[in-house]
């Protein structure tokens, strides 16, 4: 055995770089496979581990894009009237600062109704849940180092003890950790939005219809599509009656128990994309590796046939070949293990992971080991496959033959598919890079302002000095939402007196009067902000009129859908502010005066022209450190970098994978050609012997390979053109960009020409006599 291992090691010593690359590629592939399978497995959990109810459950949620602050919501009692619903429970979720034993902590809270635990099914030992109460989790206890006895939380003005502590198995519900379980009636206590003397009737009414999710149990004949349509129509009907509530929602019904159903859908979508990329990567890697092993097998055809002649049974030869692979397999296992550990560590701590997959996803070490071992088995199988093929066909009469026609066709198909997948992968990466480059090239933000965010921790209003709202303080300005953020135009407006214009969607910010001057914003048509008048941006102006002369919009009036009695006048038009970077800010925006907002209860954003002492800000806002929190957002450039970090991070990963695939393609083509040529070596030798010129031979073979590439390129171009809209819809990427498509084609052709020329030139240097010599 040791001799076999030594022999294998010696063989690989001659081609260290090639094997090193393959070992690393296999190791990284194994690592990625582990990660993807782990994530898919964790997403497949459709209910908490402690839930004993095995009936089919659905979670009813909204597609509201976390716009809790705008209070777009309606409780889902309508779900109860849906046919075939056998059980129903409401719950709400909140994450905020709560005082525990007198200290402020940020906790995640699930507000449960009386049916919640019944619906999910708990053991008799947890019968106390039926009586209601405040339940703490083991996760909270560990996190805050709490003792079980006498832990109190402050809810509103009163303190309540945690009545029971859940065991460790209650720590995870879907992919979120819940710290506290509170009865549903506490939700409005902790949800102070839009209350108080200055709240409008709309806001008060919205407060009575807080934000809930529904959990429903259904029987076997339940039709989710019918149920979704029923609930949507009921919500729409209510929306038509109560227009001022702005009840535009899209109901979604997600299988299982999922605290944020939309997130699960989004996660699933991301995982599908990742899986497709991994499969493509796997195919290219497998093909390359197979080509390398096939070339090696052909090199050793003579040796294998000789051993057959010397009396080695196939089983013994296979065993020896397996042993020769042990050094390589060991390296792959080690690299795979180390790669998997470091990639997992990197991913778990990365912004992308946090954003897309949440903070905590349970990992299974046994699943991890199973995937890693499966990859190892796959490598072993592919290593031995070409050898096995040769062993089976190693009778002397057959070894003299070259590739059969069927094998040749399979080779061509493998080659063509490899080219096609590589084209897609490289184009995907280059299109992303090109799009990002276009954004960044003109993404220079000429704003030298510092951002600050101040958050209330109780339900009292911010007291903002009127001088700030009027813009009398030249050094700072105020807004009710951050300057740098992604916007979602959900507010409907309609111009008055213009029956032909459509309802336009826009987003909204309330700002102080000096907002634009402090930010050096450029006006297309200057205007002054005041109660009742608004400034709109260029993107909104273009949506409101098709006329190139936007000045005709000045002094035009419009209404907002959820408040038809209030009329606003367009006072000015400003160039698009770079809310998410210059090239990503084509979002319609309207800016209203903060003067008419009255008090703010959640958070405000302050932008200063130069660094402003924190305590100065807090003092002027009549806040103390006890119940107000200041967060530095940094300058605008920094905020943009933070905002787009995940996008750039994802792009970097995509580019790296594409580069890897490109290099693998080159190596794979090289060895695939080598294998093809070795099979044709007698024919090649004969052609040379009959007087064909070396360069003629090279050109002929090259043209043959390029013709195969051409077929793949045509398929690639057609498929890219057909799939453009799907990709745009799925991931917001335009893959039909001429520079990236052309570059992909050029790179792949270069790879094929380079590999082909190198292989052909090396082969034709051999002695004709050697080429004509038959194999054993």
């Amino acid at each position, binding site marked *: 055995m040791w001799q076999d291992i030594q*022999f294998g090691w*010696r*063989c690989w010593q001659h081609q260290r770089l090639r094997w090193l690359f393959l070992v690393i590629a296999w190791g990284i592939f194994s690592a990625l496979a582990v990660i993807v399978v782990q994530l898919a497995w964790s997403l497949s959990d459709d209910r908490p581990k402690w839930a004993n109810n095995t009936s089919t459950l659905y979670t009813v949620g909204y597609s509201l894009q976390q716009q809790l602050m705008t209070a777009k919501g309606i409780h889902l009692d309508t779900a109860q009237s849906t046919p075939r619903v056998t059980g129903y429970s409401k719950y709400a979720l909140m994450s905020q600062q709560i005082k525990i034993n007198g200290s402020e902590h940020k906790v995640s809270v699930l507000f449960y109704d009386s049916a919640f635990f019944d619906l999910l099914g708990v053991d008799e030992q947890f019968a106390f849940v039926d009586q209601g109460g405040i339940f703490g989790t083991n996760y909270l206890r560990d996190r805050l180092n709490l003792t079980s006895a006498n832990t109190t939380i402050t809810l509103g003005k009163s303190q309540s003890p945690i009545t029971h502590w859940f065991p460790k198995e209650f720590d995870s519900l879907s992919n979120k950790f819940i710290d506290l379980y509170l009865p549903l009636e506490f939700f409005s206590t902790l949800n102070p939005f839009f209350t108080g003397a200055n709240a409008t009737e709309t806001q008060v009414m919205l407060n009575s219809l807080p934000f809930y999710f529904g959990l429903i149990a259904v029987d076997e004949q339940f039709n989710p599509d019918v149920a979704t349509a029923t609930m949507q129509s009921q919500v729409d009907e209510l929306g038509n009656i109560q227009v001022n509530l702005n009840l535009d929602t899209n109901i979604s019904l997600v299988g299982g128990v999922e605290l944020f159903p939309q997130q699960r859908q989004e996660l699933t979508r991301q995982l599908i994309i990742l899986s497709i990329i991994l499969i493509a990567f796997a195919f290219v890697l497998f093909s390359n590796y197979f080509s390398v092993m096939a070339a090696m097998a052909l090199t050793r055809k*003579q*040796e294998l046939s*000789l*051993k*057959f*002649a*010397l*009396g*080695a*049974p*196939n*089983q*013994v030869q296979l065993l020896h070949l397996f042993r020769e692979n042990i050094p390589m397999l060991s390296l792959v296992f080690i690299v795979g293990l180390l790669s998997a550990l470091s990639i997992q560590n990197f991913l778990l701590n990365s912004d992308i992971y946090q954003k897309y997959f949440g903070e905590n996803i349970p990992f299974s070490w046994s699943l991890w080991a199973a995937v890693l071992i499966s990859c190892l088995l796959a490598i072993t199988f592919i290593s031995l496959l070409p050898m096995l093929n040769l062993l089976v066909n190693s*009778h*002397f*009469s057959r070894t003299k033959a070259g590739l059969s026609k069927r094998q040749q066709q399979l080779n061509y198909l493998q080659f063509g598919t490899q080219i096609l997948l590589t084209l897609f992968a490289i184009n995907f990466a280059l299109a992303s890079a090109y799009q990002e480059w276009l954004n960044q090239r003109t993404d220079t933000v000429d704003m030298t302002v510092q951002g600050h965010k101040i958050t209330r921790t109780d339900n009292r209003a911010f007291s903002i000095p009127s001088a700030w709202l009027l813009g009398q303080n030249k050094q700072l300005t105020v807004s009710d939402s951050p300057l740098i953020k992604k916007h979602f135009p959900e507010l409907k407006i309609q111009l008055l007196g213009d029956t032909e214009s459509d309802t336009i969607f826009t987003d909204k910010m309330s700002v102080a009067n000096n907002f634009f001057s402090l930010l050096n914003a450029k006006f297309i048509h200057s205007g002054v902000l005041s109660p009742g008048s608004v400034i709109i941006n260029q993107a909104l102006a273009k949506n409101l009129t098709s006329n190139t002369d936007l000045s005709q919009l000045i002094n035009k009036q419009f209404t907002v859908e959820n408040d038809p009695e209030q009329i606003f006048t367009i006072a000015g038009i400003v160039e698009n502010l770079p809310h998410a970077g210059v090239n990503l800010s084509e979002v319609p925006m309207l800016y209203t005066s903060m003067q008419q907002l009255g008090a703010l209860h959640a958070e405000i954003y302050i932008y200063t022209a130069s660094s402003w002492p924190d305590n100065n800000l807090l003092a002027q806002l009549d806040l103390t450190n006890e119940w107000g929190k200041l967060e530095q957002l940094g300058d605008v450039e920094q905020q943009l970098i933070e905002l787009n970090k995940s996008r750039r991070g994802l792009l970097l990963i995509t580019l790296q994978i594409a580069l890897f695939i490109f290099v693998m393609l080159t190596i794979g083509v090289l060895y695939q050609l080598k294998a093809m040529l070795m099979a044709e070596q007698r024919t090649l030798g004969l052609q040379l012997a009959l007087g064909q010129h070396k360069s003629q031979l090279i050109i002929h073979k090259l043209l043959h390979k390029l013709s195969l590439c051409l077929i793949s390129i045509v398929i690639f171009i057609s498929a890219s053109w057909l799939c453009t809209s799907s990709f745009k819809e799925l991931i917001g990427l335009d893959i039909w960009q001429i520079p990236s498509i052309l570059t992909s084609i050029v790179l792949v052709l270069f790879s094929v020409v380079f590999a082909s020329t190198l292989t052909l030139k090396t082969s034709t240097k051999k002695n004709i006599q050697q080429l004509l*010599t*038959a194999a*054993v």
Partner: protein
Amino acid sequence: MSEPIPLIQLTSLSKTFNSKAGQLSVLRDIDLAVNRGESVAIVGKSGSGKSTLLSIIGLLDDASSGAYHLCDTEVTTLSHYQTSILRNQNIGWVFQNFNLVSSLTVQKNVEMPLRYNKNISKSDYQNMALTQLKLVGLEDKAQSYPDQLSGGQQQRVAIARALISNPDVLLCDEPTGNLDSENSDQIINLLLKLNQNGTTLLMVTHDMNLAQRCRRVIEIKDGTVI
């Protein structure tokens, strides 16, 4: 006194190949017997089927019909594993192009058949290999590599490899085909000397001089023995 049982006995042996043009009959009703200690030369024109015949005798290929007895064993009924054992322990091969493994030393090349013989322990490999190399006069080349040897030397290494398992028959496929006349003579002399020592010799050759030095010459024409 009964006649000795032939070492190799072919009875109505035939071999056909399937091709696009239909069935191609390479060997037809071959009857052949080779006794122990004989030296037999198989001659014939190119395409007559002599290499195919040798392949079947050497258990590298299967006959389409007929019977083949080797060492009084009917080989057509044996399993793949059993024929491997026969090939390893009862047959020695010498090829036209030597077929040495270039990445192994001369000694390791000679040891190769022993690796597939469970009856021989690893500790005996070296001694047995050196013994065979001494027999062919190359014991000083044990640690050399094949590409460091001349053609004649390589063929002698191949002969040493073929003999290491003490086979009943030595099968040679054009053993001097790739050698000059001086080396050819050396190899022929070596093979005939081995035959004189009791090794059965069966060789395919175009060289009529070599053929005539064997005890028996069999000519094959159009797939049959003349």
